[in-house]
């Protein structure tokens, strides 16, 4: 039984294909302006690689911000449910999921059976998302992929008190003018994003195990500071951006089984 999950995010579109429960292929591309077109393209690309046709896929679930437009999907399910299932499949002991994406972030809590119990989303404000870090990396003229490591080079964070990205940016500019080291500023910025996430975690309840998902997982600075602040080890998938699509493909599998 072949199933696919398509996660159409505002930044990137991801597809995962499963054969029964085995992960056999995936693809990620920038979503761009035309999410429908991109979804089809990414889907086609991965099918091509696997030497499969669309008709070979028995059930497709679309998730993410752009899910509503994916007409070729059999069903549309929110990214909450899909991330929940994806994280549960990857790390069965997961009770709390911290997802930090390019333009949104969320915390999901799972019950003992791995089902979503509660969730909180931040999709209104750049603070607490990858965008926050992008803006700051730009400001500090440090490549995005290096900010995590650089932040860990400082033990003391600069104090960034603003919760708003725009105002935090002003603070960073002042700090640079004052001659504060980039690593210290970055540490402060990473602490700020972690602080925001922790606020969300507490609203939903912190229970281990904790799994982090989303593109910002790759940032070791956020990951390590988050672990430190929460006081618990955090699971980190090797392909963190695919968790939603993976969850969707798994859900497709479950739906198929029920149908039969």
């Amino acid at each position: 039984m072949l199933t696919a999950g398509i996660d159409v995010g505002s930044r990137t579109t991801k597809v995962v294909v499963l054969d029964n429960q085995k992960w056999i292929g995936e693809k990620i591309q920038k979503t761009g302006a035309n999410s429908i077109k991109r979804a089809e393209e990414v889907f086609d690309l991965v099918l091509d690689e696997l030497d499969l046709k669309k008709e070979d896929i028995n059930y497709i679930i679309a998730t993410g911000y752009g899910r509503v437009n994916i007409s070729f999907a059999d069903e549309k399910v929110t990214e909450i449910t899909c991330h929940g299932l994806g994280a549960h499949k990857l790390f069965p002991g997961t009770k709390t999921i911290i997802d930090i994406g390019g333009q949104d972030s969320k915390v999901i809590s799972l019950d003992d059976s791995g089902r979503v119990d509660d969730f909180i989303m931040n999709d209104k404000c750049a603070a607490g998302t990858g965008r926050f870090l992008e803006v700051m990396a730009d400001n500090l003229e440090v490549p995005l992929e290096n900010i995590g490591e650089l932040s860990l080079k400082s033990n003391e964070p600069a104090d960034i008190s603003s919760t708003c990205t725009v105002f935090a940016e002003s603070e960073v500019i002042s700090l640079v003018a004052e001659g504060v080291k980039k690593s210290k500023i970055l540490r402060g910025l990473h602490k700020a994003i972690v602080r925001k996430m922790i606020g969300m975690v507490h609203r939903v309840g912190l229970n281990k195990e904790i799994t982090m998902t989303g593109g910002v997982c790759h940032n070791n600075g956020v990951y390590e500071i988050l672990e430190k602040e929460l006081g618990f080890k955090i699971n980190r998938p090797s392909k963190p951006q695919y968790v939603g699509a993976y969850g969707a493909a798994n859900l497709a599998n479950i739906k198929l089984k029920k149908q039969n």
Partner: protein
Amino acid sequence: MYKLFNNKTFIKKALNIGLSYEIAKIIAHWKAEGFMKEAFLFNIEETKKAYNNNKPTVWCSTFVPSELIYSIGGVPFMPEVAAGFVSKIGMAAETLHKAESDWFNNDLCSIHRCGTGLMLEGYMPEPDYIIASSHLCDGAKRYLQHISQEYEVPFYLLETSYYNNEIKYLIKQIKELIDDIGITPNFEKVFKRSNKAYNYHKKVNELRKKDPVVFSGERALNLVTMEFMSFGSKKGIKFYKKLANTLEKRIRNNEGIIDQQRYRLLWLHLKPYYSQEIFTTLREKKAVIAFEEYYQLYWEKLNIDKPYYSLAKKMINHFGWGELKEQKNDILELINNYNIDGVIGFSQWGCRQNNGRMGMLKKELKDENNIPFLNIHGDLVDSRNYQEGQLRTRLQAFVELIDMKKGGK
């Protein structure tokens, strides 16, 4: 026609002439039927009375019992209800803008800002006096007091005590208020009407316990003005009677709101007045609002032998007043009686009394009683703050959560 409706002077003139209301009534008779027609006619008639000078126009906060106003021969006018109406016809942004330019903080409840904006724009009927109760919130009594200063009319504050055993103070205040106004109240006629409507309302509430849901929370909240203003009026009786009859018929014929209804939800607080996709999103997932806290019959029938006591009791007994643990118990009872699968609490921007209870209610209902609970943030009146995609995701995820919990699909 559109240009005409956008013309402020035209609207203000139209509101003050009887002909507009007669035309509106004709349209209501023609286009509407059943309980909807009664609701339209009630609102048209009351608005007309508020604008003409035959009876004192009494502005009041939403939870001042309408029976009190009717008993003293007044026409109740609730600016908060006007704000809802204005939002429905898409005019709220202008009035909010007006209030903000007049030093009204943006953090304040948009309903109060809208009411103030309407007043500043000159759309509202002039009050003869203003009565506010201290329940449920600070904002309502403050903005009404502010307005009373603008109009230079008397402002009365009824401080609603928190506990039932303090009722004598509220009774005293009501008596003093009536004395001050100087009119002999006609409680008998008004209470009779209120109690008649009460009987039909009780029937409606009983019918709504059944499956399928034949009267959704969305529709009920559209008509919530009737809850606030119609008790004590003749049309109120007609409305609830027709509503009860219609629901009875629908249940007999198994006319549910949606096919294959799966989940019955409870709604806390009010709902946005402007057009939005909240309820269609839920219906797509086969969930429907089976009941809402604002339709509870939280008071006992009014006793003509103890009129002041009855009115005071109605105020103190309001479901949203008093200690939160009582509210929680009420809500649990509703969940039980209405077979509720999940609760959606709406947090209105700037509504301190409501938003401050959501955290606790969620903890009590979800964590301690295992009842799925979703708190959504939005604005009742300001559609500029409505973000459809984000709300849809939350609502859909919530129903998916209930789905998984019930082991469905």
